[in-house]
């Protein structure tokens, strides 16, 4: 009977994507996104804007574009245990993710110098040692994450797009990552419930690891690609005028 009623009921027709109703929804999304961007631009924290349509990842502060990283690949990862997926229905686009920190953390290895007491010795004091560059100081791991509070993490495999990496090195990296993923997927903590796997050029990925400021925030753009690009660059074009 229920089946019969269901079969006789009029099938709701999906409104066309260019219908006035769709336009309202698009504008609602767009204004919500602009509000988030404005909120980020008004804060003191550094923030990343990931635009899947461009595609690029931009480091920003107070509305200024500091560094743009071209995204070569973007995937979404969900944990699964024994082939059963654990999808979390939370919204992740168009919301601000905060307290992003590097994992593994970048080591800080400071040179400590204790000054000679005044007047001790006539000789010219030795110049302080030359601090190493970032490249010399921090080896970039084959895979790193930027973990945000509330469970989102951005995964960056710096050597993914590096054609010079051999098969054995790739296999070793995969093996190590697989074990890490098994442990993370089985974890009960509310972390890593959603991953964005962002492939950058090896140079960009290493640069991001070396220079990512602490407690960074993230906004993943969504909506109509033609209009959201304008908001990233701060241009004032509106839909239909470009």
């Amino acid at each position, binding site marked *: 009977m229920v089946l019969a009623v269901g079969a006789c009921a009029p099938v709701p027709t999906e*409104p066309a994507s260019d*219908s*006035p*109703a*769709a*336009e*309202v929804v698009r*504008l609602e*999304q767009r*204004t919500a996104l*602009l509000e988030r*961007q*404005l909120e980020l*631009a008004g804060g003191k924290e*550094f923030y990343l804007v990931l635009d899947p349509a461009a595609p690029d990842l931009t*480091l920003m*502060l*107070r*509305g*200024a*574009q*500091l560094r*743009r990283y071209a995204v070569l690949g*973007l*995937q*979404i*990862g*969900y*944990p*699964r245990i*024994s082939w*059963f*997926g654990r999808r979390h229905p939370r919204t992740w686009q168009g919301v601000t993710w905060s307290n992003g920190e590097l994992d593994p953390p970048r080591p800080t290895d*400071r*040179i400590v*110098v*204790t*000054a000679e*007491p*005044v007047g*001790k*010795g006539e000789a010219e*004091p030795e110049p*302080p040692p030359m*601090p190493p*560059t970032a490249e010399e100081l921090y080896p970039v791991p084959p895979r790193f994450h930027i973990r945000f509070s509330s469970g989102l993490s951005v995964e960056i495999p710096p050597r993914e797009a590096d054609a010079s990496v051999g098969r054995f090195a790739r296999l070793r990296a995969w093996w190590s990552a*697989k074990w890490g*993923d098994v442990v993370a997927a*089985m974890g009960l903590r509310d972390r890593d419930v959603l*991953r964005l*796997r962002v492939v950058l050029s090896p140079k960009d990925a290493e640069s991001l690891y070396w*220079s990512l*400021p602490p407690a960074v925030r993230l906004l993943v753009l*969504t909506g*109509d690609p033609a209009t959201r690009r304008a908001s990233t*660059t*701060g*241009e*004032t074009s*509106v839909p239909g005028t470009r």
Partner: protein
Amino acid sequence: MAGAVAGLLLAVVWAGTGYRYEPYVETPVVPWGSERSTERDLKQQTARLRGRERQLLSRLKAAAPQGVYIVIDQTHNRLYLKRDNDILLEAVCSAGSGMVLNEGSGKKRQWVFDTPRGSFEVLSRAENPVWRKPDWAFVEEGEPIPMDLAERFDYGSLGEYALYFGNGYMIHGTLYERLLGRAVSHGCIRVGRDDLRKVWAMAKLGTRIYIY
């Protein structure tokens, strides 16, 4: 036999545990709730939202730096002079070394030579700046801290120009251009003579400085 089956089962479970990656797909815009609205309502909503959008875009533009601004990448020791998103100048610079200096005697103070991260602005500009050496400069060189203020003045070591951006930090020249590209400063940003002249010509009072 049972051991082999258990091992196989474990391998299957292990293979199926981890993360499943899917390509990013844009979520389509699905109208909800508003499909029952009348055409007049929708027109009104669209007009209101377009007005709001214009307002937000204009506020976002106002929040972004206006005109020329400076971006400093202290990890790679680079200074960029930018307008909008165009790079007008890329200069090799020297940022803070991150070194820790402990005072060997006396007050046993400690200084950390970091360049601060964040957003700043040019607060003052000086031609042929004179450096008033702080205590750490004497401690580092193993010299007594002078009582006479005049003995603190150092002429020429900051180059031709200095752009002061607060808390004792400046963008200035250097006598040691061969060290540019290395993080060797005490927190200030050192720039080579030719690049400093260009920065001086374009950066005015209030020019924004972003350091990351």
